[in-house]
């Protein structure tokens, strides 16, 4: 069967190549080439007055490696991502579970309520938080101060807590969807089966439901983690220029300082770190659950 040598491609193979060629070319042009160029850019030199110099040096990488400012910034980026991941997990799991147990009309309504925010731009959603908590004029802060619960406005803008809360809100739909998908695979009678064997409601949750939605929780975690670590709009609005994360820092280097090579190095480092984290945790999860869930 496999007699056609690479030089004499069968017409079928050739037409298959012909079909994927346009999309392949597009992918190459808009993803791979800019990526390679960014990587190369990160090795170039830059000076206030001389601009970008196309040489191969490790200056930018050394700067990131040695300057504690960058350490702090990357630590903050991943700290925020980890916190957001855990918060969405902790809130998303019960949310998805309750949603899954709802009856016909309400299920649809609340699914829409949860997924609805996806239809609104991240910027608009984040600005909403800013309106509620932004300084003295934030609606919630004003109300709380009026009724005397607090004396000074709750610190929200330009704080890490603020970024974490707003990002958790933005990322919640992804987590809920992921857990929801795992819940859909659950046998509808499985809780009854456990109950009939003498389990309490709490035991059913802990021993039966939770282990089964674990893969959904973990894959949701990977999605939320990588999206949160590379998020731009929310940290940019809530964190502003005072509280920088990797994405906003790279942006600033590109557009404000105009130090493109340093910005490129930050962006590449973020990308590489994310790829390593996502790929390795995914491999770990797959190995762990292979025997149980194909």
């Amino acid at each position, binding site marked *: 069967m496999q007699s056609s040598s690479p030089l004499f491609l069968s017409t079928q193979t050739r037409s298959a190549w012909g079909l994927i060629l346009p999309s392949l070319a597009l992918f190459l042009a808009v993803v791979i080439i800019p990526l390679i160029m960014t990587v190369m850019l990160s090795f170039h030199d830059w000076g206030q007055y001389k601009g970008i110099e196309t040489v191969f040096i490790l200056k930018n990488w050394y700067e990131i490696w040695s300057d504690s400012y960058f350490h702090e910034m990357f630590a903050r980026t991943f700290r925020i991502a980890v916190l957001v991941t855990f918060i969405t997990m902790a809130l998303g799991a019960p949310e998805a579970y309750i949603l899954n147990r709802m009856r016909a009309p309400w299920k649809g309504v609340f699914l829409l309520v949860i997924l609805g925010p996806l239809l609104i731009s991240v910027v608009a959603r984040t600005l909403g938080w800013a309106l509620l908590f932004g300084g003295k004029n934030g609606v919630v802060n004003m109300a709380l101060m009026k009724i005397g619960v607090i004396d000074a406005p709750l610190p929200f803008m330009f704080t890490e807590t603020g970024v974490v809360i707003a990002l958790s809100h933005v990322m919640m739909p992804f987590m809920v969807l992921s857990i929801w998908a795992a819940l859909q695979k659950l*046998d*509808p*009678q*499985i809780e*009854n*089966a*456990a*109950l*009939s*064997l*003498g*389990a*309490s409601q709490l*035991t059913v949750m802990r*021993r*039966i439901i939770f*282990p*089964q939605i674990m893969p959904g929780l973990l894959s949701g975690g990977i999605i939320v983690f990588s999206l949160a670590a590379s998020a731009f709009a929310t940290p940019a609005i809530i964190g502003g220029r005072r509280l920088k994360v990797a994405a906003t820092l790279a942006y600033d280097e590109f557009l404000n300082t105009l130090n493109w090579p340093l910005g490129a190095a930050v962006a590449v480092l973020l990308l590489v770190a994310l790829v390593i984290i996502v790929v390795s945790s995914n491999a770990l999860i797959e190995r762990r659950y292979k*025997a*149980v*869930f*194909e």
Partner: protein
Amino acid sequence: MAFLELQNVTKTFGDHTAVNAINLTVQKGEFVSLLGPSGCGKTTTLQMIAGFVPLTKGIIRLDGRDLSNVKPAERGLGIVFQSYALFPHMTAAQNVAFGLEMRSIPRSDRDQRVRDALALVGLAGYEERFPRRMSGGQQQRVALARALVIRPQILLLDEPLSNLDAKLREEMQIELRQIQRNLGTTTILVTHDQHEAMALSDRIVVMNKGDIEQIGSPQDTYHSPASAFVATFLGKTNAFEGEVQVAQGGISRIIVGDHVYTASAHIKGPVIISVRPERISFAKAGLRGTVCTRIFRGNHWLFQIKTIAGVATVIRQNDGTSMPEEGHDVHLVWREEDTFVRANSKVG
């Protein structure tokens, strides 16, 4: 006193009555089947016994105790679900051990009982398998072992064999019956398969649209159906249109097509007479008809015979005697005790 007692048990969903004031008593050690078409309320009944569905009205007693306020976990019933509902993240042994863990049975004792239960259902050596890596029949056995290992007061089975292929189902039926006989566990089986119900049960409860139509032994329900529904639902039956005329001395004359015979009917006028295919035989005189098809089935012959009272299905044992061929004229007769006569509401 009855072991399990359902008194006036009713379940309504909105304005739809799924189970309509049924009464049923089950003796200790008995094997009872709930049989009926889809949507007749079998599962609902079982789930009310299990405690997953609250009763709208009525009372369920187990060993004299009212179950109204007893949680499913405290009823001590073993349930095998139609979908098996095994715990996919646990091995076969862990699945079976779960009920024992909940009862805080000590480890050593538990392991022994799990091994015994798996051996009982023919799964010795499968302890460490995950359910996904087992065939449908094996999963079904794990579910059975999981229900049996807690030594349930009653075993509830909701169409446990319906996902298996015909051959495996027959094997499992025999096995299920043997296990139940050996352990003496009171068992209630839900099924819509009349053969399964007849093969396994001491008594069959025939249900239709939330009502119980008949309760009786497999032989009783088959041979003396209490209603037309039972007659048609349990096995094939012929329904001839006929007429009952009262003759002298309380004896009735029954007319089916050109066949007239006397019998003790309790009604008169237009009727429908049901006769099982295997209870019709060929004779010199009787209901006249022509053989349209004749099918050889190995151990029996299956005939379709056109008569003026309708097309009749006849089954004859293949006992070596010669059988009429297609196109031949035959006469059909049956015994009075093999018929079920009911009024024909369509005529008159």
